[in-house]
């Protein structure tokens, strides 16, 4: 079954909404079983749904009042990107604000690969560790 741009745009919105709610099952439902998730400043990718469950559980635990808004989504065949504005608070109440961009490879209506392009320098500055 082929999926069009509208399907993948909705998938991106559903993913961000699920992350915001901290709904791990809904987050993982956006990914293929063998999905690969990369973050630009992490050397190793997270591979597979079960590893992703652990990754996102950590994210949900470390950040509260998380809000991710896709400001623009582009889809071209089996690839896409979304620019996003991210706001959250750390567990100790420190505010975080990032503007990141995700790159996607789609397969079977789901994310087969996600790469998060973010800046660790900005993140560490906001966390007070850099």
């Amino acid at each position, binding site marked *: 079954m082929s999926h069009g*741009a509208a399907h993948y745009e909705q998938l991106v919105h559903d993913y961000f909404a699920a992350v915001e709610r901290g709904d791990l099952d809904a987050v993982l439902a956006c990914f293929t079983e063998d999905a690969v998730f990369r973050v*630009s*400043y992490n050397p190793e990718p997270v591979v597979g749904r079960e590893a992703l469950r652990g990754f996102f559980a950590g994210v949900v635990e470390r950040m509260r009042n998380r809000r991710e808004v896709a400001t*623009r989504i*582009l*889809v*071209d*065949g089996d*690839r*896409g*990107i979304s*620019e996003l504005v991210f706001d959250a608070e750390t567990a100790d109440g420190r505010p975080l604000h990032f*503007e*990141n*961009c995700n*790159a996607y490879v789609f397969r079977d209506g789901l994310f087969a690969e996600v*790469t998060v*392009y*973010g*800046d*660790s*320098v900005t993140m560490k500055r906001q966390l007070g560790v850099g």
Partner: protein
Amino acid sequence: MFKDEPLHGREALRALLEADKAGWPEQRNEERSAIVQGDAVATEHRLTATTTAGRTAALDVLRIWDVADGRIAAIRTYADTAPLLEALAG
């Protein structure tokens, strides 16, 4: 090479490119993917840049290009800038 605030206009862009070339005389962009939707293009690159002191940084970059009237109207760049700072710091 990367700025937190946007630059506007050709002259500001010229100044950026000149400073860029002076600080990072060797640069290479290896394009890994490109997608097009209407007047917007997104490209993924592996950027390798070398300082005047000969230190090299390598980083993955995503750029979004807005095109109007056949020319680039805006570029937004997303990357982890830590490798650049590390190369500059030596």
